[in-house]
């Protein structure tokens, strides 16, 4: 099956370790993503993306590769597809210092073209990364999902 991919890049003026923590620790992710990313972040472990408000698990996957504070690879799926590896896509975070900033690259690949997941993430990542950048640079998150919620 043909799979598709997206590559998102943002430059963040913050220490690399802080950006790494902001991706992995629920006390940070809940502030700009409104979700808790929960795992022990060891290769082979599971991870969950849960609504901080309701505790509902909205994404699941496995941790594939962890090299702090540079590279994190994990699989990504809807909870109903947890036991179906063919429905899993893959997300890679790469952090690289560039001058006084850090380039954060998010590659989301192995997506099924036309799937609900493809549609959801192509709107979601720019919003999340924009909010992450603002959160780390100003200490204040953007109302990340405000518009999506209001439009519902």
């Amino acid at each position, binding site marked *: 099956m043909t799979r*598709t*991919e*997206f*590559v*998102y*890049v*943002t*430059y963040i003026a913050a220490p690399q370790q802080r950006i790494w923590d902001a991706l992995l620790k629920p006390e940070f992710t809940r502030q700009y993503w409104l979700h808790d990313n929960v795992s022990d972040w060891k290769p082979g472990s599971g991870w969950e993306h849960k609504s901080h408000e309701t505790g509902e698990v909205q994404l699941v996957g496995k941790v594939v590769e962890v090299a702090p504070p540079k590279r994190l690879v994990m699989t990504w799926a809807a909870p109903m597809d947890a036991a179906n590896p063919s429905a899993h896509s893959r997300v890679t975070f790469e952090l690289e210092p560039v001058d006084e900033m850090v380039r954060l*690259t998010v*590659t989301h690949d192995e997506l099924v073209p036309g799937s609900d997941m493809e549609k959801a993430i192509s709107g979601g*990542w*720019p*919003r999340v*990364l*924009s909010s992450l*950048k*603002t959160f780390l640079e100003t200490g204040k998150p*953007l109302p990340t999902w405000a*518009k999506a919620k*209001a*439009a519902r």
Partner: protein
Amino acid sequence: MDDVFKALADRGRRKLLDRLFKRSGLTLSELCEEMDMSRQAVAQHLGLLEAANLVSTVWRGREKHHYLNPVPIHEIYDRWVRKFERRSLKALNQLKQQLEGERND
């Protein structure tokens, strides 16, 4: 942010972004198809888009693949659209909900 506005202020570059929106991961040769300009001009436009971070690239072997990176556009939206339009967007959204609600009933 100046880079982004400059990069967007050209029809050819906007067309390149539209094409990457439709299909991601295209190479320079693939992007040259359907473009009414030289390969060198397309490469220059892509360089400008990449410098503005509107296009991200990945090397695979000897081929460079290009992806639309809408993150800076979202930052512009957050900075220049959301702030000024929050109130009217809310009203429009309420109207949309009401109209769609009526239709769905």
